[in-house]
């Protein structure tokens, strides 16, 4: 399958390892990964902060970059960006766009997937040949869980990983407190939520806390780093892309 990879602005700039792993994983599974070079940002931060005029060019750019009919599916290693493309771009296009934009948005929204959805629903795989000999706990990010409804797909993928020690996260469904600009505008409430999430992670004794969204992981990881926790964060794609022959840097370091 010809798959368009949307790196997301955060993934491209700050967390390229997760995007790299996504590209490697899909290629290893026999698919052609294309990266439209004109891509930038989906505009989620703008929309969630209350700005709908400003991201119109971003919404248009996304539709143009990925509208190509030869791209059969669009994947992004971010539940919240996939949620924005699927649910919010239409709102912006309806309000401030023209008929062409509305049509373009509908086209890309219909073939947009978060990574675990693409793997399980579209490509029909749960065992991706990964090897990850570590204790891992999974945080289901809010937009994956409640906007995209990915359900247990990430967990099915993780359970199929060779040598993984997967432990349940207490209070997994609770928000980590990120919420984009919420973490800035209501930093103290966000911190209170974060601390409860960190307590849950600590209770698992996991070496790694994983999730399908680099933004939430940035938040959780920032908290773990501040309290000098022994747990680190790693995007789901990095675990799924780790194999015996090409282990993740974390595994290499431990070996």
């Amino acid at each position, binding site marked *: 399958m010809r798959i368009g990879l949307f790196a997301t602005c955060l993934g491209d700039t700050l967390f390229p390892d997760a995007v790299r792993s996504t590209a490697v994983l899909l290629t290893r599974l026999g698919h052609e990964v294309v990266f439209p070079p004109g891509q930038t940002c989906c505009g989620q931060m703008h929309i969630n902060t209350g700005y709908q005029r400003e991201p119109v060019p971003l919404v248009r750019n996304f539709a143009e970059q990925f509208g190509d009919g030869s791209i059969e599916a669009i994947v992004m290693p971010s539940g919240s960006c996939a949620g924005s493309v699927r649910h919010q771009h239409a709102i912006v296009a309806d309000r401030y766009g023209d008929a062409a934009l509305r049509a373009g948005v509908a086209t890309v929204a219909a*073939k947009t997937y978060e990574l675990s959805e693409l793997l399980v629903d579209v490509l029909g795989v749960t065992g991706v040949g990964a090897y990850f000999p570590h204790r891992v706990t999974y945080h289901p990010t809010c937009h994956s869980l409640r906007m995209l409804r990915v359900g247990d797909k990430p967990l099915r993928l993780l359970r199929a990983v060779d040598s993984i020690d997967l432990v349940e996260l207490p209070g997994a469904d609770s928000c980590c407190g990120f919420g984009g600009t919420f973490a800035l505008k209501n930093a103290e409430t966000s911190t209170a939520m974060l601390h409860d999430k960190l307590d849950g992670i600590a209770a698992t004794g996991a070496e790694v806390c994983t999730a399908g969204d680099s933004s939430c992981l940035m938040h959780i990881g920032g908290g773990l780093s501040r309290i000098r926790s022994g747990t680190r964060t790693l995007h789901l794609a990095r675990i799924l892309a780790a194999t015996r022959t090409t282990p993740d840097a974390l595994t290499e370091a431990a070996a």
Partner: protein
Amino acid sequence: MSTFLGMPARPPRSPYGTGNLRGDEPFPRAAHRELGNGQLRRNLGKATTTIRTKRLNVTGELPDWEALRDAGSAIKTDAMNRLPELLEQLERKVTEHGGTVHWARDGAEANEIVARLVKATGSSEVIKVKSMATQEIGLNEHLESVGITPYETDLAELIVQLAHDKPSHILVPAIHRNRDEIRQIFLDRIPGVDPELDNVPAHLAAAARAYLREKFMATKVAVSGANFGVAETGTLSVVESEGNGRMCLTLPDTLITVMGIEKVLPRYQDLEVFLQLLPRSSTGERMNPYTSLWTGVTPDDGPQDFHLVLLDNGRTAALADAVGRAALNCIRCSACLNVCPVYERTGGHAYGSTYPGPIGAVLTPQLAGMHAADDDPNSSLPYASSLCGACFDACPVKIDIPSLLVELRHQNTEQSGTTPEKLAMRAAAAVMKRPALYTGAQKAAGLGRLVAGRDRTISRLPPPFAGWSDSRDTEAPPRQTFRAWFASDEGRAALRAAADEHDGSHAEHDPGDGRHDPGDEGHDHSHGEGEKK
């Protein structure tokens, strides 16, 4: 009846400076104070955890829960679409059955109507059933100002009233108080209470029973709200637990019910939906202990003088917004408060309004506006959410609260003029829409490495990021962006190696090429379809 020439006039919000629909400080500042109260955090954490489990148990046992939510949502939407005819029908039916219907444009008018009706009975006291509408309009304060003493009879409202406190929850207004605090309030404020009173909830409830018994027997006028008003039959309904509602609705000579105009239901049959949705969502019970249904006046049974006050107070302003209007579908169950991670930490007082929590954050700004004064605290409410979506899943009438919050944030930025934030957002979008500028900006972001410590983390950031860096480290940006790697020799080699791995394993099995129809499962499930599990 007015007729329109051209564009109809936009209905007004609840008048500024009246009632209880606005706090005196923005949410983050109020939250700061509440977050510092450890006792409050423990009380709320315990209570919300208890109620969440109960709710999931009783909603999970109904196989048609989702169908009930669909019906509940559609009934309310239908009622909003047909509001004029339904209210006129309700008025006609109530009048036919011996009641009197009054209309109030705002809270002050409703307060005056109630005070006038009470005075006409000659009574200087009223007993009250817990009611959000009368809390919203500040009825108690108004009655006191004209020499009428209101007695709250719901246990939690009594606790709040005795402590000169404010409610902090729609269903359980004293949720911020624990048993020890309540015991102390009773010891301090209930005349003649047993000084040996302990903190056992059953004993505290018994003390309230003894205190209020005499009021129920002697007071001639009661004031209530209404959960539902059925247009088809003129039937009103109060859903409650303690029996204080039955007392107030039954024993006095005069009953005055204040009902928001959005509480009307088209058909009596519609109760079959809401009497399943409401108790299971609010207290996590299969049915609440008592529900009263009454239609006007019944000879020889209950109050012989019945008044219904229909209240606008900004509801029509909310109705004029095609998106925001959905907030009027709320049946005040409080399930969204109980699952909200923000409410759980800050409590209800931080919202400054009678309506706290997620539904309050979308309802309050619509009823009272967000820009009625400089730095209107209500403009901070739509941001008091991480948009986690737990409220939407819990809502029995499927109000998409996260989408409403995003919509109100948009309305706020549209009404706010040019702010530094807007300029920053514009600048960010201007950069991001041009790939060349964008890659330049990525290089600049890479400079963040310079301020990072030896462990590649940044522990201190300037405003507006200072709140972030108070409790979170930030990783220094990596040396290479993804797009640079993808275009590099290293990236090409890595992907070629990955492709070779596939070709190598291809001979024996094919893990990756099994294509499925993308539409068959899972894609684009709309938000709020139901509970997990």
